[in-house]
């Protein structure tokens, strides 16, 4: 099994719902708490496992706003695991989930240096590394109804832009989406082979720009408006 997420950049509206649901679930989950320093102050800083960044892609009139949620990509070749000196960082043989053993981490930051996706953040309070668990404490929980055995970010997404599944199964929803929508990996040149895949926005027809009316028409329209009153 190779578990991971597909994220649809066409439909993501950048609401930060996934990040909030992630923080809520995981702060009381297996790696919790996820501490915040100065949470209600001027400069709040804390560990989040999911970040959403917004970009403007291309130039006017083709420009487009793209929201890009990013969490751990659970890479096939995860350098964050091999650089870890203590053995706290590990990748599960059975499903490919990359996890940090909170009891072994010494907070040297080297795994966050080795991660190109900014998926790892040091907890400012406990001094250990925090990262996305793919809600490992949720997806295997047999007490939950089957439909809820999914990561918190996937369940909460209002536009269904996040899909969770097994990339090793060619008939799974994620594999189909990657095939049909030409899913992309981020920074493939670094060779980490990230599992999480991004679906690029669909091409939409370029909107004709509205012609601004001539001065004569503007004045005419304005006069007509006044007379009509």
């Amino acid at each position: 099994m190779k578990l991971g997420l597909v994220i649809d950049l066409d439909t993501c509206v950048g609401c930060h719902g996934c990040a909030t649901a992630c923080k809520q679930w995981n702060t009381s989950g297996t790696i919790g708490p996820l501490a915040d320093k100065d949470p209600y102050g001027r400069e709040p800083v804390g560990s989040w496992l999911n970040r959403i960044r917004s970009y403007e892609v291309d130039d006017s009139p083709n420009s487009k706003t793209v929201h890009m949620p990013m969490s751990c990509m659970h890479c096939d070749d995860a350098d964050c695991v091999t650089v870890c000196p203590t053995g706290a960082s590990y990748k599960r043989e059975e499903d490919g989930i990359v996890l940090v053993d909170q009891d072994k981490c010494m907070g040297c930051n080297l795994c966050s240096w080795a991660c190109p996706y900014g998926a790892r953040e040091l907890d400012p309070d406990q001094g250990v590394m925090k990262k996305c668990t793919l809600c490992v404490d949720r997806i295997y929980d047999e007490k939950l109804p089957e439909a809820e055995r999914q990561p918190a970010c996937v369940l909460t997404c209002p536009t269904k832009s996040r899909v969770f599944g097994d990339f090793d199964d060619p008939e799974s929803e994620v594999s189909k989406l990657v095939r049909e929508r030409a899913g992309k990996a981020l920074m493939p040149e670094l060779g980490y082979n990230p599992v999480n895949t991004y679906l690029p926005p669909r091409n939409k027809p370029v909107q004709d720009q509205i012609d601004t009316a001539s001065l004569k028409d503007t004045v005419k329209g304005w006069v007509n408006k006044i007379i009509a009153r």
Partner: protein
Amino acid sequence: MHPAFSVLTFTVMSGAGYGLAALLILGHLLGINSLQDSSVLLTSGILALVLITLGLLCSMGHLANPKNAWRAFNRFKTSWLSREGVFAVLFYPFFLIYLIGIWTQGAEINGFFSILGLLAALIAIVTLFCTSMIYASLKTIRQWNSSLTPLNYIVLGLMSGSVVLAAIQASLSGSASSILYQLATALLVLGAIAKVIYLFWIGKPAGSTINTATGFTQASVRLLDQGHSSNGFLNNEFGYTVEANKIVCLRVLMLVVAFLIPFLLLLSGSSTLIVIAALLTVGGLLVERWLFFAEARHVVRLFHGDQRT
């Protein structure tokens, strides 16, 4: 990258310590005349131990959870940081027994102590190599991911060690040994060349861009919003930025203080000036290490709006 002071002092001090230890042992065993004096050997040996130990203690300073530091020896098979830890600890018994040999038998030690000394010198250089590979193995930082990084760490470690060794020899025996002077001068030239090549090499644009980072390779990409109102861990760790003119000034300062002035002081041949040269080299290498971090640009910066690394 954020230059953490503890890591700067650690790499500079332990670099000088391992360089000093390796050169002292090799020079002694190769039969260099000025190093057949047990007081010079013991003083340099103890100074090397002090530098290495202080450096290693400093390295603990940047751990956020040091109570788990003992676990760092676990992943010798894959982690350069783990390898560095193992070799750093392994160095102590070999070097201590070698020093005890000198203390009890003087400069004419027997074969047993010589072999242990030789192994200590080898482990010292391997440790330097492991330290450099922690940085050189990171594909995320193109300024570090190069064979120039281990070259720089090993050459600069031996260089600072050679200047310190020449300084100790000169101040203990009163007269300067010409071979140690020549060695230190040659290593200063070599170090400066290695550093200048590195500076030219990192100046070449290369590596990932905001386009490959976001997957939009056929259009321009600009950051609109990084998603949080104040800086987080990633900004603080990787977002460290220095103005270009300050970088230029510090590069010049580094080349002058770490290489040029010590080189000129060594040419003078006076034994007091060479102590100053040793201090300047170590101080200049602190600037060099600061620049090594401050100029390194992690790819996460691309997600925060940088167009290229």
